[in-house]
């Protein structure tokens, strides 16, 4: 028999982040409100001769901060360890370090297979020769390692949708909870593109900012002088839970996931359509699923990566979906501070939305100096502000022309 015949309600009960501007929730949130940038000269390898030599690196997390089964942790590369740490933090935050064994818990991770040592391995001719290598270089290893470490036998999903990965993972987790496939889902994503291979690939498609003389001012989504994205790294993980289950155990409720939708652009692989139609379909779908109207939304955590055409396309998408109401919404891109976290960006964006609805404040888009006439919404320029946030939306768009949007509401708000 099906678990449910009508979809139930889903709440957020735990948060965890690893980012270039803080790897605890309080640090992350205060950095966001301060308008602090995490960008700087790349420290982990010599990037001085590359056209772009800076990025937003995670500095404050030693990989040995990861606790738990060393055997399983040894399977995880840097970005997967970020995910592991953020997931552990989120579970702890939710009070689920040692859940009741009857609780059905699943995992949904948005990430991509990365190979940070690829160029070096070609140079030295080193093959994969360890019995665990086939797992280490699989995309699904984090989802499996988390499930194995914690005994989470529920739905176990890995989603690879480029920059929309973790937004989609969260959406899939949300839907599985709605239909009763699990009681709890640990969901989010992790990524790191700060390696010579990705620096090369993104430089070659001219996607990166070249503001080498002033890295902290390079990521400037929507600003007239934006010249490309800033590579970032990190993880965002969230504990999602069926409402009845969360209430029964007296969990703290951060907010409620109200709707999710994904869409395709059917346009080009690495460019967004100027009219923003694909992304607006995802936003509209999320609103429809939530049975809400544009005027109900107070804050949008935009995908906007600081590329000339991407930010324009997203502005068009927001207007297409929200119409005149778009001008009343606070829209900020926290990538102005964290850089682009790629597969992790949607999850970190959702966490920003959750913090916005719980603290009634919206973080800024920093580095706003000159208005771009094509981008004329309220991007919360440079300084965060207080605002009663009833409902927030996070959007994500990825290479391959895929989009996702999630709505989160203040708990208790009708």
């Amino acid at each position: 028999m099906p678990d449910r015949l009508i979809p139930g309600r889903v709440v957020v009960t735990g948060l965890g982040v690893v980012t270039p501007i803080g790897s605890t929730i309080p640090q992350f949130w205060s950095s966001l409100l301060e308008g602090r940038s995490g960008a700087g000269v790349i420290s982990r390898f010599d990037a001085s001769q590359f056209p772009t030599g800076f990025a937003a690196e995670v500095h404050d997390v030693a990989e040995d901060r990861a606790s738990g089964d060393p055997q399983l942790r040894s399977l995880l590369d840097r970005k997967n360890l970020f995910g592991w740490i953020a997931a552990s933090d989120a579970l702890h935050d939710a009070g689920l370090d040692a859940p009741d064994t009857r609780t059905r818990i699943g995992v949904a991770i948005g990430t991509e297979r990365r190979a940070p040592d690829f160029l070096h391995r070609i140079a030295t001719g080193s093959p994969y020769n360890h019995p665990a290598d086939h797992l280490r270089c699989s995309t699904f290893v984090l989802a499996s390692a988390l499930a194995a470490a914690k005994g989470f036998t529920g739905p176990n999903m890995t989603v690879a949708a480029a920059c929309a990965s973790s937004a989609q993972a969260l959406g899939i987790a949300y839907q599985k909870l709605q239909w009763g496939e699990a009681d709890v889902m640990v969901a989010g994503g992790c990524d790191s593109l700060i390696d010579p291979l990705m620096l090369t690939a993104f430089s070659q498609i001219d996607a990166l900012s070249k503001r080498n003389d002033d890295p902290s001012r390079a990521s400037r989504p929507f600003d007239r002088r934006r010249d490309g994205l800033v590579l970032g790294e990190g993880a965002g993980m969230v504990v999602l839970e069926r409402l009845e289950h969360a209430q029964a155990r007296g969990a703290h409720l951060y907010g409620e996931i109200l709707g999710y939708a994904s869409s395709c652009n059917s346009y080009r692989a690495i460019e967004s359509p100027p009219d923003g139609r694909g992304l607006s379909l995802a936003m509209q779908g999320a609103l429809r699923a939530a049975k809400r109207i544009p005027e109900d939304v107070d804050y949008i955590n935009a995908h906007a990566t600081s590329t000339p055409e991407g930010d324009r396309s997203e502005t068009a998408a927001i207007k297409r979906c929200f119409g005149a109401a778009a001008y009343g919404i606070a829209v900020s891109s926290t990538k102005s501070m964290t850089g682009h976290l790629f597969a992790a960006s949607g999850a970190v964006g959702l966490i920003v939305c959750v913090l916005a609805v719980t603290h009634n404040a919206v973080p800024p888009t920093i580095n706003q100096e000159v208005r771009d006439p094509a981008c004329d919404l309220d991007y919360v320029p440079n300084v965060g502000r207080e605002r009663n946030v009833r409902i927030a939306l996070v959007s994500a768009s990825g290479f391959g022309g895929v989009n996702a949007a999630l709505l989160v509401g203040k708990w208790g708000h009708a």
Partner: protein
Amino acid sequence: MRRSVVVTGVGLVTPLGSGCRATWDSLCAGRSAIRAVTEFEDLAAGSVTGATVRDFVASEHIRDDRSTRDMTRPVALGVAAAAQAASDSALDFSGVAERVGTFVGAPGRSYDPDYFREAVSLASDTHGLHLGRFAAAGMDCVSPLWLLSALGNNVLYFVSLEHHLLGMNGNFPCGDVAGTLAIGEAFHAIQRGYIDVAFAGGYDSLFETDRIEAYRAAQLMTQMRAPASLAHRPFDRHRDGFAASEGAAFLILEEAAHARQRGARIHGEVVGYGTAAVPLSRMSLGPSARGFATALQTALADADVDAIDAVFAYGLGTRSSDLEEAVGLNEVLRRCRPRARVTAPKCMVGNTGAASGAIETVVALMAVRDGFLPPIVSRLNPDPECDLDFVAADRGHTAALGTVAVCSANAGGNHATLVLRAGRPS
């Protein structure tokens, strides 16, 4: 009243041929595609026992043949299978673009060293790679097309572009469960009313340098070279690993009333989907008996059925996985009378990774249609510890098949099962 989900289109590209007919005829005749594969020169240390898709010309299968330039081999296989399925369905997608979902089981981003060898060699000496030199001189030798060609969701991209699809989507790089997961997620999405139609399938080629090396290091691949055709030996006493393979399969899933209303041909029905993340151990993860049993039980419960007529086993061909699968499936199947017959198409197709669940689903649908289960040609010395009602090695099994299950697992200990049923006459 839950919506029913039927299969109205299928597409298949395997080492046994392109199109469903070629693969099915070979399986029924017990013809294996597995051989000594020597054509991938850079997969060092001699040959690999495996199977490859032969004589595949992408532009013969893909309408926009300019786009095939940006496709790696496995991506082209996937796009070709999806195109076949779309054509087979005779569905006009333009009227339903936002209500069509795309769900793909994928291998994940690819890393082909050929794009980088020249650049790296320019920047390296006996001490290794010098990044400064690489950036200054080597980078210019790297084709900017690498990023595009290596995208982990390229099949989803090309399929959505070809058919102007705008709706719900998911791309799952989940190893050997990926194809099964994609079909299951599509099934639930239609059943729950998010969409009315879906492309669902998987694609993969294990013949990538890094992966063959890694599988070798884990001793997962068969070492048997002669007769290579019988080297992938599921549930056999002498089994020693899988035959590396490649291929793709796609289905068009459709809400049943929608399909019947337009007079679509119905290949069968998807009625259940279940998963379980239960690794064998923390040391080596991998499939477990409890995982196989739980995934099957969950899928049966989802389908609201107690018994099935046949199982298409995961049949990885390794010592551990096959034993775990036999124990796990037996735990569930021994309660049914008569016990379901079990077959394992990998014995002739090899391990097609993220495509396998999708390929085996299409094979299962043909089996149900024809009332025939292919033989397990390489199971010549049955392992007494694998106690299931297997189809023989020397002949297939003829029987009316109403409900069947397709089982998959991955190296991380994830398991997924689909339950399929014959299409009801309209």
